[in-house]
């Protein structure tokens, strides 16, 4: 079965839990090259999302994603708020009215999310941002779609690609966001935004491991 509405809800709830567990880790990563608030901000945002979900849990996946996006936009703040807000708003527009998602639906949604993020944040691959984790994940999904991979396998591959992209941010010198003020000193640290993005896709692959 493709990804059902309840699967989508389960993914968001699972991610909120992951963020709560990884709050200190994300904030520590941000302390090294940013301003020590990424974990705390994401946790505040996803706690608010959990409070909002009951209102839309009988709606289509698009409405659920859009509600997540609007809630993040008004509660996270910093750079993470507009960027993760945009991710879910864009994905929500692509999945409007849908009660289930195929590999093609999910690929389109994540691709739209990534273009929205690139437009809002103006970052490119290699700038040491969340774009470095999301771009290879989207590319991998597109390949999987072309080669007719099963949905759960494609999700697993995209999470692995996001992990590689995240790890690849370690040696990079930041060119966007607060880490860019550090210049060369930002090298040697993993980007917190790429890390939370990898966790998002890893949680999707784990939550949706039985879809097809």
């Amino acid at each position: 079965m493709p990804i059902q509405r309840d699967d989508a809800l389960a993914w968001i709830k699972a991610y909120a839990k992951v963020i709560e567990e990884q709050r200190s880790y994300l904030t520590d990563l941000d302390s090294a090259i940013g301003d020590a608030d990424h974990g705390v901000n994401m946790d505040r945002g996803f706690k608010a999302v959990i409070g909002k979900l009951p209102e839309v849990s009988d709606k289509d996946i698009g409405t659920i994603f859009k509600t997540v996006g609007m809630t993040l936009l008004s509660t996270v703040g910093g750079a993470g708020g507009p960027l993760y807000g945009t991710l879910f708003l864009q994905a929500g527009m692509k999945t409007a009215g849908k009660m289930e998602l195929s590999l093609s639906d999910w690929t389109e949604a994540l691709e739209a999310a990534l273009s929205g993020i690139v437009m809002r944040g103006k970052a490119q691959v290699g700038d040491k941002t969340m774009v470095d984790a999301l771009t290879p994940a989207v590319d991998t999904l597109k390949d999987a779609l072309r080669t007719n991979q099963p949905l759960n396998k494609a999700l697993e591959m995209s999470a692995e690609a996001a992990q590689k992209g995240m790890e690849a941010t370690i040696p990079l010198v930041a060119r966007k966001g607060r880490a860019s003020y550090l210049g060369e000193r930002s090298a040697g640290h993993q980007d917190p935004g790429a890390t939370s993005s990898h966790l998002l896709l890893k949680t999707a692959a784990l939550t949706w491991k039985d879809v097809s």
Partner: protein
Amino acid sequence: MKKLINKPENVVREELEGIELAHFDLVKVHYDPNFVVRADAPVKGKVGLVSGGGSGHEPMHGGFVGLGMLDAACPGAVFTSPTPDQMLEATKAVNGGKGVLHIVKNYTGDIMNFEMAAEMAGGEKIEVASVVIDDDVAVKDSLYTAGRRGVGSTVLAEKLCGAAAEQKRSLKEVVDVCNKVKNMGRSMGMALTSCTVPHAGKPTFDLPEDQMEIGIGIHGEPGRTRMPLKSADEIVEMLMEPIISDIPYKSGDEVLLFVNGMGGTPLIELYIVYRKACEIAKKHGLKVVRRLIGPYITSLEMAGTSITMLKMDSDMIKLWDAPVNTPGMRWGV
């Protein structure tokens, strides 16, 4: 962590409640979404001025709301940009029919949130202009960074634009004043200690007893270089040199010299800094015609200072001297 707080998650809310109780004659506080607004807003026929940013920089921005300065300020969580819904509601609350200016500090989060708010306000037929302040010479302005950070000049922009708006100048004219500050103001800061974000619970970075950080930002983000501690005079030279060489100041130029405290440095030390900064300015033939000394754009309890120099013309001097009545700055009233 040793702080005079109740719970980290209540810091901003309880601070706003305190501001509301203390300054009810000047401002009103709106909750959910949070913003501080002039008690008499919207002032009809006047350009509305809105700024905002993370909390932890007090008195900026909430302390600068009132006659002759901001109409509204949006506080985010500590060191975190506020959100578009706050900015939109603040913009609507101060719209007196002549448009609204957003004064934005150049940080990725602030820029994106204010952009989204301006788009939303446009959808509600409110004319919004934005000026991004990016005066920190410690950051190289290039395609390869987020650009210079907005620091001390923001305080000066809020004062001068506030005075211009109070004279009922048009949105375009107020934007012109803001751009003058943006183009003619330069800053550089340093830290003697780190600071602790309440919900992080530990210092943002470690700075050993005998070291200092040069080129620090206002969020406890590490600066450009770390080096052994030097004397006040030597430190001031290291801050003034990049500022003076950045704008081609001519001998005889009139400037405003702003020595800012980062939150944990006492006035006694800021005056020692001012003394040397003034001497260096004079050596370059610059006339210090106005000055501001004190903690105005802080970084929680960080010890350190930043110096801002703004080239002034006669209009800017008049705007600086114009009456201002806010919790954090008050004269001429």
